[in-house]
């Protein structure tokens, strides 16, 4: 079975652009007015930011291999969003504190995931799924889910608003680009990143080459938790309000984004650029489906079909017979 040699991130982005242009000609598309098209494009990327950031941790754990996955990301997003919300109470000078709390709490939950996975050998899928339930439980216990708070003006300004009235690029996008660069540094230009890929491919080799698999394993789940925490911080900055169901809708899309971005779900191979591209493609598709008139049933089937097509393009695994 020959496989397309074009790199997944590029493929995903190309796909996004093609879809976007095509959609211009569809009924209710935005082909007729360039300004509308630009507005729509920026908007889609802006929306992709939140999915993209939440998918960052997902990318790391998936690269770390051994069925690595984080199903607790959604509920962690909700929890940290709530914590941010109640900490900040509308005051700009509390924002940093809130950010730190979000990161710390996220990291702690991720760390517990890591303990279960590395030492008790619980499969990441069910460990993080169970943890997701535990965290939701915690959220319910905190004030029975009804919380008081307020996001700070500065958060809204930095996250939800454009760079400046005359430059219509939303700050969120700028943040994302910087974030993406940092993720690249982490994965491609740091010892940790190299060790991460190593344990994703072969943990025995990694250990015999001096990689502390346990520590790396724990670190990656903690980091993933922290990144989900950061995601929660950003999301609440965008929605301005919190609610129990805030994070869950991001969960499976975050995994899909990683896969569409060409990261091997079996671990050891992948990039965050790919995930960013994947997040954009997914958001694009859902957005297009939104502005098109079709019943929810058709909408879902189209989404499913598109996903299938995309992973068929480059999600192929090696055939047995070469």
């Amino acid at each position, binding site marked *: 079975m020959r496989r397309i040699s074009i790199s997944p991130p590029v493929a995903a982005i190309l796909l996004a652009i093609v879809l976007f242009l095509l959609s211009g000609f569809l009924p209710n598309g935005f082909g007729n007015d360039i300004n509308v098209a630009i507005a729509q494009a920026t908007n889609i990327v802006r929306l992709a930011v939140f999915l993209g950031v939440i998918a960052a941790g997902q990318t790391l754990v998936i690269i770390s291999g051994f069925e690595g996955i984080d199903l607790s990301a959604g509920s962690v997003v909700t929890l940290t969003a709530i914590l941010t919300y109640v900490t900040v109470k509308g005051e700009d000078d509390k924002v940093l504190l809130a950010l730190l709390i979000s990161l710390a709490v996220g990291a702690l939950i991720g760390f517990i995931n890591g303990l279960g996975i590395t030492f008790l050998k619980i499969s990441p899928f069910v460990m993080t799924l169970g943890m997701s339930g535990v965290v939701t439980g915690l959220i319910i216990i905190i004030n029975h889910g009804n919380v008081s708070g307020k996001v700070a003006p500065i958060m809204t300004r930095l996250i939800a608003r454009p760079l400046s009235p005359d430059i219509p690029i939303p700050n969120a996008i700028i943040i994302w680009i910087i974030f993406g660069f940092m993720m690249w*540094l982490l994965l491609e*230009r*740091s*010892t940790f990143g*190299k*060790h991460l*890929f*190593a344990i994703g*491919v*072969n943990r*025995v*080799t*990694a*250990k*015999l*080459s*001096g*990689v*502390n698999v346990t520590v790396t394993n724990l670190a990656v789940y903690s980091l993933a938790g922290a990144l989900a925490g950061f995601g929660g911080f950003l999301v609440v900055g965008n929605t301005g309000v919190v609610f129990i169901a805030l994070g869950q809708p991001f969960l499976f899309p975050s995994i899909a984004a990683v896969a569409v971005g060409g990261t091997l779900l079996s671990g*050891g*191979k992948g990039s965050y650029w790919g995930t960013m591209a994947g997040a954009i493609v997914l958001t694009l598709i859902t957005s297009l489906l939104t502005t098109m008139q079709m019943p929810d049933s058709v909408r879902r089937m189209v989404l499913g079909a598109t996903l299938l097509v995309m992973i068929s393009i480059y999600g192929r695994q090696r055939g047995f*017979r*070469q």
Partner: protein
Amino acid sequence: MSVSLSARNIVKRYGGVIALSDGNLDVHSGEVVALIGANGSGKSTMSKVINGVVVLDGGQLLLDDKPVRFSSPQAARKMGIATVFQELSLVPKMTVADNIWLTREPLKPDGMIDRRVMREKTEALLELFSGTFKADLRPETLVSDLHPDEKQIVEILKAISLNPRILILDEATASLDSRQVERLFELVRRWKAEGKAIVFVSHRMEEIFRIADRYSVLRNGKTVGQGDIKDITEKDLIQLMTEKEKVFQFTKTTIAENATGLEQPVYLEVENLTTEILRGVSLKVKQGELLGIGGLQGQGQRDLLLALFGDIPYQGIVRIRGEVVRFKHPRQAMQKKLALVPGDRAKEGLLYIRSILENFLLPSWQKYGFPLKMKLAKRDALAISERLSLVMAGLMAPVSSLSGGNAQKVVIGKWLLRDPDCYLLDDPTKGVDVHTKAEFYALLTELSQQGKSILFYSSDDDELIGLCDRVIVLHDGKIRAELKGASLTKENLIAASMGVSNGGEA
């Protein structure tokens, strides 16, 4: 049951890599054809072509002079072709019996597997190798619990259980000890007599000349010579496969040579080392010494090296330059400038889907700061690959695109980057072609002359005798003998390996 198979002008590509450009092979009933070639010359690929595991891109197969096309391993099997794969074809979490009879399980009338019959048939097969393996190799043992040599035996039995007309043995002897090889050869002779046609892939010249009737030599994908063994000398064979004139001569490295006269200090001292397999091993290694470790498979050689490297827990005392150390993790051993080349490069030595560069640098990334200085890293890696004359498409190519021998170079190369004081080598020349072997030997000599201490386990007795000036022989977790100078002969080595006094296993 007479049979003949010939492969004509076989072409096989893996993506960019050309594995076979013009492969040819003829084999007939009652003969053993040795398929010879350097690492990466295409031997395994040729095997996989014959047994239908890969799709061939060109050429044709003639079975009993009729053209055949195998669409799958099933097809080849139906024609009576069985293979012992170089990278075994066993399922770890299944029992020995289940593995051997997979797809051919004896069935009861109701379609259920007849476990009892299967067990008996398996025991009968195991009889073939009886006495050459530990008692824990039973039909109901999980393959994952077996030693490499026992796995190899199971793989061989699995192939022979098909009662094939044509049997391909791809480096079946690589992880067998001399006793087991003897037994295999007896069997091969018997099968020959029964009229089976046998393709024998090995890097051990001595074996080839003992068992093969004819030879077929591959040189990077092209068959460069076929004929009768009796008409060719070892020298000419090696020349055929390597294009090189000289046959490698072992150069002994005695400590006297590297130090100018005066006695070298002791580098490593082990007292009463005990693990699950080892039972109180004590030894000293001097600086610049190349200490050989001999013995049958699984007598504790691997444990000794892993324990010293901090990979497995142990009781006993280890001193480096007189200072007591107790490593809990390889990382710590590395900090004390130790290096380990593990026995199973695929499972323990390499990151197959990652680049050659990353494999070289895995133990060393810390040195390159943050953000990692990639230019520097590339330069260092390149230097090493040149020093080892590594054959590769480029540093960015995945290790999976390298042949066995070149892959093994990467495993060793990643340590050279760290310039350790002591190398722990677990059968590093396993499945490595003569030419590459020669390069390894030269490297070892060079290292020990630089004053590096080396613990060198090899399943190839000639290597030990040729290279080391002192060899300890492990048997049943204990040092059975220490051979040096005059006493270091093949006879003594084998005798000690067999554990003369008693070979008793629990």
